């Protein structure tokens, strides 16, 4: 058995993405900045990719900056707003490290970073956020859909309150694009978002930064001035083409999302019936359709992952032992989940490779694996 339930980690390249990028790898190999025929052929592809991505995300083509992935897009946004490490920013305690650690590094150099709390479901406390975000702040950084819990934040309200105060807003949308409608046109203010192609059936190492807030970012990388000077370097036209294609595909996959939601709900209801001591983090909040964070009492999530791997199931833990230090997920800690329970987290993320038959098989496998793990823990 080989069942892949870790789409939040990465996804295989889809046919559409391969077809979109393939011509630019060999035939239309040119440097898109050159004036000759080879450059023109590549440039046409880049322009097309930019136009398609902008159409899918609801922004102007010039407000698309192709990057070398999601973390890079987040870092360009963080450094572009507060790279001088002066002033004040507001963020959340549940950010992906691409934002969280970037801000922490700047905080060491003097940036004031204020974190708005989340509730027990992992949803940002909007009242607290409204109190914390002040005119003059450099920016606000929020993860649109969380990579651990799958929780989708109320970004319209967040964008509004930032816009009212004139504070730029960056949303890490790396997980969100796969599962929710992203329409930048509907978000007021100086908004930017970060996207990674490989979470959507695209290649690793391709992503984009999008939104009307791009115009006011300060460049943090220096070179030939490509991508509005924000991401210099010879353009990866193949990556950009694939990225645009998978963003379009994800944003028109309503039926696929419904299927994933059904499968996820089926997984949670059957597992909840068959295994004691299980709860699902953020089950009361809006979540990505294929995403479930299962908290199992009396075991370690990373050890459960190892057992499920032996059965052929690729799933993720909410935390991992890195040579003698098991740290529970900072996201669960911020939600007030106690340490022991947080260490028993199992993340399931369904997607392109998921089939209806996977769910009962996965539930069976989890049910089987839990028995010896709990027996071993009960023997302590």
């Amino acid at each position, binding site marked *: 058995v080989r069942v892949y339930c870790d789409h939040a980690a990465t996804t295989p390249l889809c046919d559409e993405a391969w077809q979109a990028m393939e011509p630019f790898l060999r035939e239309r190999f040119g440097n898109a900045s050159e004036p000759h025929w080879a450059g023109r052929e590549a440039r046409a592809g880049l322009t097309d990719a930019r136009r398609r991505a902008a159409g899918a995300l609801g922004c102007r083509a010039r407000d698309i900056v192709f990057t070398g992935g999601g973390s890079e897009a987040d870092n360009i946004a963080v450094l572009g707003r507060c790279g001088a490490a002066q002033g004040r920013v507001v963020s959340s305690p549940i950010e992906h490290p691409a934002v969280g650690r970037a801000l922490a590094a700047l905080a060491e150099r003097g940036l004031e970073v204020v974190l708005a709390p989340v509730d027990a479901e992992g949803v940002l406390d909007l009242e607290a956020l409204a109190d914390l975000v002040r005119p003059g702040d450099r920016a606000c950084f929020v993860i649109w859909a969380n990579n651990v819990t799958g929780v989708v934040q109320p970004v319209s309200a967040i964008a509004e309150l930032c816009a009212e105060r004139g504070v730029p807003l960056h949303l890490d949308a790396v997980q969100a694009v796969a599962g929710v409608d992203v329409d930048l046109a509907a978000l007021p203010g100086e908004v930017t978002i970060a996207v990674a192609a490989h979470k959507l059936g695209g290649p690793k190492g391709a992503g984009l930064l999008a939104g009307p807030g791009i115009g006011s970012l300060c460049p943090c990388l220096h070179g030939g001035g490509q991508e509005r000077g924000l991401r210099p370097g010879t353009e990866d036209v193949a990556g950009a083409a694939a990225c645009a294609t998978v963003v379009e595909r994800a944003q028109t996959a309503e039926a696929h999302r419904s299927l994933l939601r059904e499968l996820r709900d089926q997984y949670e209801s059957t597992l909840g019936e068959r295994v004691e001591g299980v709860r699902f983090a953020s089950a009361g909040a809006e979540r990505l359709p294929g995403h479930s964070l299962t908290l199992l009492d*009396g*075991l*370690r999530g*990373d*050890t459960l*992952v*190892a*057992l499920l791997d*032996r059965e052929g199931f690729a799933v993720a833990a909410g935390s*991992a*032992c890195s*040579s*003698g*230090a*098991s740290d529970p997920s900072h996201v669960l800690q911020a939600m007030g989940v106690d*340490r022991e329970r947080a*260490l028993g987290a199992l993340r399931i993320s369904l997607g392109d490779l998921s089939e209806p038959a996977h769910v009962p098989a996965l539930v069976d496998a989890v049910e089987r694996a839990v028995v*010896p*793990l709990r*027996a*071993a*823990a*009960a*023997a*302590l």
Partner: protein
Amino acid sequence: VTDFTLAGCIQAPDGDGAAGGSACGDRVRITLRVVGEQIVGARFGALACPAATAAAAWCATRAQGRPFLAAARLSVSDCLRDLELEAARADCALIALDALHAALGDALSRVALASAPERVVVAMSGGVDSAVALARTHASGADAVGLTMRLWIDPAAPDASRACCSPDAVRRARDLCHSLGLPHITLDGREAFRAAVVDPFVSAYAAGETPNPCTRCNGSYRLDAMVGAADALGAPVLATGHYARRVRRGDVALVARAADPAKDQSYMLARVRPAVIERLRFPLAADTKDAVRAEASSQGFAAAGVRESQDVCFLGGGDLRGFLVRHGFDDEAGDIVDETGAVLGHHAGAAAFTPGQRRGLGVAAAAPLYVLRTEPARGVVVVGGSERLQRGQVDLRETVLHLPLRRVEAKLRARSPAVGATIEPLTGPGRLRLLLDEPVSAIAPGQTAALYDADGAVVGSGIIDAG
């Protein structure tokens, strides 16, 4: 690949060991059933990362059905190799191996291996001397088994994990045994040691004495416990890394000064009973420290580079006063007085002042002043001139004499030479008086007096009384 067949615990086990719970929170427990020489049952419990869980299962699988001493050979490197774990996972495997070895040590009190005349249990502290003692015992062709006692260390100490008999020291000793293919047993002596050595240490200071915890530990706790372990392991003898000789006077086995007077540790063994000495062997009796260190280096022992500590082990590098205060010694500020009771100054706490001490008094006087005694009940430290420290006689309590001698050489503290003395009886059990051939300075009540015969054998000992 973790085999969970042996997950669980044995009810009322013969050996029960747990480890972990600190840095990463992972925990492992191993329970054993031992019948005769065989471990007939082993089970593991784990709430741990995949590597530590797999290592726990490996420990149970490899221990079950094996002879007791074969299980005591199981090492971290065996585990990493069998499970094909990367070296970075050694800390994870270590949790499981610690639990297994704790269970083996716990089982020792319920194990009676058949008597094996060639077997030598080697007492290992984790230091260089016992490492060489082990290597020499092994090289001599004996069936060597390493034994380390884990002793209580002040948890607030700065070096709690590195001191002698700490977890690190236990692992170093175990690793050395395993690298030579030898079994290693860890005895958890923490609670018993605390009751037998640490509590009396604090009480002695509270009574104004200056105790010697090492002679007390060797004489009435540690070596008895290790000889008991040797009995359980079927070994007739226990080798240690002490610099001392074993001699015989008629039927009595005694400890005698080592060949190297600079490193002689016979004083530390002065309180050991002859029945225990009968069982001891000292492979380093004829050596110098430099030679031993060189031998350890040439064999690549990790212990060769370990810093030698002369301090009280359970202080773990911490200061004495802070330790005493943390452990219930009610140390209040008070007066520094002379023998007439005149107040000369003040101290922040009488604990840790010892007779003969000059530094730290903070009292200005025409002639140098020394601590004569402390009186914790009154909270005073009594000082006087150096001539007031001289004493020509000393009374001993808790005295043991192995030979009926009248003339001895008395060593009244660890770092001072022995002086000739005549024994005079006193009334009361275990009491006697030493008439010293020449006056001795700064005799501290609570210290051990070791009594030697003319050939350097310890023929008796006692505790110096306030008189």
